C-alpha cells in the first residue's frame, strides 16, 4: 500500500525539482551569462585610450591600469589644480577612470605629486621617484603646415611654455625654403625628457593646437626587436664590426663615366 504512494511522492518531488530548475535556475544562469558576455564584448571596444585622454602621472601601462584603478577619484580630489576628470558612462574611456585633456588644462607637475600619494591601489605607481620621470603622454608636433614656427614666424610659445625648455622641446634651426633667405626655428620634442604634462598643447596659439600630447603608445613608433643601429653597435664593440670597409660595386647609368 505504502510503496506506490511513496513512488508518486518521489516522482512529484522530482518533477517539481526539475520544474524549479527549469523555471528559475536556468533563466537566472542564462541571464547572468548574457549580461556577462555582453559586458565582455562592450569592454573590448575601448581598451585603448582615445588620443585626447591623458592619464595622471605615475599611471602604470594602460592594459594593466584598467585592472588596477579602483575608480575612486582620490587622485582627482587631491589635484590642487583640479585638472583630472573621471570618465562618465558613455565616454570612450573606461567608466570612472581618471584622465585629463591637455588642451583644457595641463598637469603642473607638482614636485610632491599629491595625486600619486592619494592613489590607494598602485594604479598610479608610488615608485615614481620624481615628477620629471613621469611619462603621462608624449607631445607631438602634429601639424607642420600650420605651426607658426614652421611658417617662418618666431611664435615659440610651446617651446617657452615647456617646463623642460631646451630639454623636452628644442628649436631646430633650418633653412626657410619658401623665402630662401630666412631661418625656421622648428620645435622638436625629445621623448627622453618630455613628461606629457600637456603645457605645450595648452599654450599653442592656434585655434586647434599644432602640437598635441598623445598617449605614449599612440605617439611613438617602435623598431623591430631585431633592429640594431650600426653606430651604437660600433661604439659598444669599441670599433667597426666588419674588419675593413667593404668595397661595393659602383652602379651608375651606362652612359655616364
Amino acid at each position: 500500500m505504502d510503496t506506490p504512494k511513496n513512488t508518486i511522492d518521489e516522482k512529484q518531488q522530482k518533477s517539481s525539482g526539475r520544474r524549479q530548475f527549469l523555471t528559475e535556475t536556468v533563466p537566472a544562469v542564462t541571464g547572468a551569462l548574457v549580461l556577462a558576455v555582453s559586458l565582455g564584448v562592450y569592454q573590448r571596444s575601448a581598451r585603448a585610450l582615445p588620443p585626447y585622454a591623458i592619464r595622471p602621472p605615475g599611471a602604470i601601462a594602460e592594459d594593466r591600469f584598467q585592472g588596477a584603478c579602483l575608480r575612486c577619484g582620490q587622485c582627482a580630489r587631491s589635484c590642487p589644480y583640479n585638472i583630472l576628470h573621471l570618465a562618465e558612462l558613455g565616454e570612450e574611456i573606461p567608466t570612472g577612470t581618471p584622465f585629463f585633456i591637455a588642451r583644457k588644462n595641463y598637469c603642473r607637475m607638482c614636485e610632491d605629486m599629491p595625486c600619486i600619494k592619494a592613489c590607494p591601489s598602485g594604479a598610479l605607481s608610488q615608485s615614481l621617484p620624481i615628477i620629471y620621470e613621469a611619462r603621462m603622454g608624449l607631445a607631438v608636433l602634429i601639424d607642420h603646415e600650420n605651426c607658426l614656427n614652421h611658417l617662418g614666424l618666431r611664435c615659440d610659445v610651446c617651446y617657452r611654455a615647456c617646463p623642460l625648455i631646451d630639454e623636452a622641446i628644442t628649436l631646430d634651426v633650418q633653412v626657410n625654403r619658401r623665402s630662401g633667405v630666412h631661418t625656421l626655428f622648428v620645435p622638436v620634442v625629445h621623448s627622453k625628457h618630455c613628461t606629457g604634462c600637456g603645457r605645450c598643447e595648452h599654450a599653442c596659439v592656434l585655434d586647434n593646437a599644432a602640437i598635441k600630447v598623445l598617449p605614449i603608445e599612440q605617439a611613438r613608433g617602435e623598431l623591430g626587436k631585431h633592429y640594431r643601429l650600426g653606430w651604437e653597435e660600433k661604439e659598444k664593440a669599441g670599433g667597426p664590426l666588419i674588419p675593413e670597409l667593404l668595397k661595393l660595386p659602383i652602379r651608375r647609368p651606362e652612359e655616364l663615366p
Partner: protein
Amino acid sequence: MMSRIPGREAAQNKGWIKAQKWLLLRRISQLGILGLFLLGPLASIWIVRGSFSASKTLGVLPLTDPLIIMQSFMAGHSVAVTALIGALIVVVFYAMVGGRVYCSWACPVNMITDGASWLNRRLNLKKSLSMNRFTRYWLLAAILILASLTGTIVWEWVNPVTIFQRGLLFGMGLGWFLVAAILVFDIFVVRRGWCGHLCPVGALYSLLGFASILRVKAGQREQCTDCMDCFAVCPEPQVIKPALKGDEQSSPVIFSINCINCGRCIDTCPQNVFRFSKRF
C-alpha cells in the same frame, strides 16, 4: 475593497515619527555620507576624500569596496597595501553589523529603489515578473570570472551602483539613463528587481554578513495579527517568514544573509513585533 496602506496603522498606534524612525535614520545616514564626500569639493572641508569605491577619511582611515578589490585581484593586479587595509576594515565592519547594512544605510541607490517600491505599491501595480533572487550570485560569479579573463575591473564599466554613487560626486553623464532604467525596472517589471534580485555588490555584502551580530528579531511574534504590512514593505520579504511564522522551537531571529537590516518592519509593525537584537 480599499487596499491597506502599510504603515498607516503603525502611525496611528505609535505616532508618525516612531513609525518612520529607522527610515529617517537611514536617510540621514545615506545623505550624511554623501554630504561628507561633497564637503571637500564644495566647501573645501576635507573630511572624506574619494568616493564609495575607495576613500580616505581624515587622511588616515582608508575604506575600499570589497567587490572592486576582488575584481582587481582576479584581474591579476597586486593591489597596494592601502587599498587592502581599506577593504579589510570594510569587511570586518560589515561582518559584524550585517553585510547588507551597506545597502540600507550607506548606498544611495537604495533611496532610488525604495522610491520605486513605494511607487509600485502606491500605483497598486499587482503584476510583476518573478525572478530568481539567486540570480545576483550567478552574476557575481560571472563578473569575477570575467575580470580574470579580461584583466580589467570589468563590472565597473557598467555597475549602476558605483556609477550612481560616483555620478553624484563627480558628474553623472549618461549614468542618468542607467538610474532611470533601474527605476523603471523596479516599478514596472520586477518588484525590488535591482537590489533584491540582481545587484552583485549587495550579493557580495550579503555573503560578508553571514555571521553578523546585529539582526532583526521577531521578539513579540505571538502578537502578530497577520496584517502583512511587514511583508509589503520588506525589500527581501522571504527572510521574514522563518522567524515570524516558525514553530515554537524555531528562533525568532531573522538569520537570512539577505535581510538588509533596514528596520522598516520594525517601523511598520503596528504591534511592535520586531526589534533590533543580537544574533544569540
